[in-house]
């Protein structure tokens, strides 16, 4: 087994383990920490594929900003251990087998497909960030400008939602 494959399996096991731990943990802060494990190992996988800019953004924005926001809100609301009320039967008997079936179908379709793209090996050659930025600021410049508008609306929405009402 060559070294990149070994690194892939270690990172994949970390990601899947973190995702399973997210489900198993009762306290939301433990779930948040295991989600950080998933995100950091995904960043490692992006590096393995040579997508270095996406890996950096993944760590800074996802592992940093978004997860800090989550942990901040969990601590602000003093969220305790998840209380287990009468667990919806529908979720247990229909939802989970259905989700597992979807996963199995996608995985089987990928595994059995003989599409040429799927057998292409990831060489790990670094994707040039310069070309990425050229693409982002030339071809995708209108969506890029629209995201700034989206962020502005999100800021306004978050402030309006979270402020205390003046009576």
């Amino acid at each position, binding site marked *: 087994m060559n070294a*990149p*494959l070994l690194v*892939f399996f270690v990172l994949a096991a970390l*990601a*899947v383990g973190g*995702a399973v731990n*997210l*489900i198993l943990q009762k306290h*939301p802060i433990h779930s948040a920490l295991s*989600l950080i494990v*998933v*995100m950091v190992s995904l960043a490692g*996988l992006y590096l393995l*594929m040579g*997508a270095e*800019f*996406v890996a950096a953004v*993944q760590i800074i924005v*996802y592992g940093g900003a*978004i997860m800090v*926001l*989550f942990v901040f*809100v969990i601590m*602000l*609301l003093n969220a305790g251990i*998840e*209380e287990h*009320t009468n667990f919806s039967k529908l*979720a247990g008997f229909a*939802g*989970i087998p259905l*989700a*597992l079936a*979807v*996963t199995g179908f*996608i*995985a089987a379709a*990928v*595994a059995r497909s003989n599409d040429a*793209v*799927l*057998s*292409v*090996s*990831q*060489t790990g050659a670094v*994707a040039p960030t310069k070309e*990425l930025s050229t*693409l*982002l600021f030339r071809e995708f410049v209108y969506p890029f400008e629209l995201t700034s508008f*989206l*962020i502005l*609306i*999100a*800021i306004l*929405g*978050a*402030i309006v*939602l*979270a402020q205390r009402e003046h009576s």
Partner: protein
Amino acid sequence: MIPTSYYLVLSAILFGLGVVAFIFKRNVITIFMSIELMLNAVNLAFVAFSRALGQLDGQVFVLFVIVVAAAEAAVGLGIVILIARNRQSLNVERVDLLKL
């Protein structure tokens, strides 16, 4: 080197785990985190296809997905704070005004 299909299978597994967490969890913050997990799984598939096809478009899409996820997290957590303030609980089963 590593075949692209490995990344896609891993992406499918992570997405499925996100769906299971979405169904299984009762806490509204944890449900929100499972949505982020699903977005991450899709990002992995985007980058894998981008590298396999030798085109960078997929990585640009990943950047947009991350921006939208950040905006969604800000607004969603504002809603979570409102739910906690009005219901004194984070359990989604207490949020049942639309239920018959």
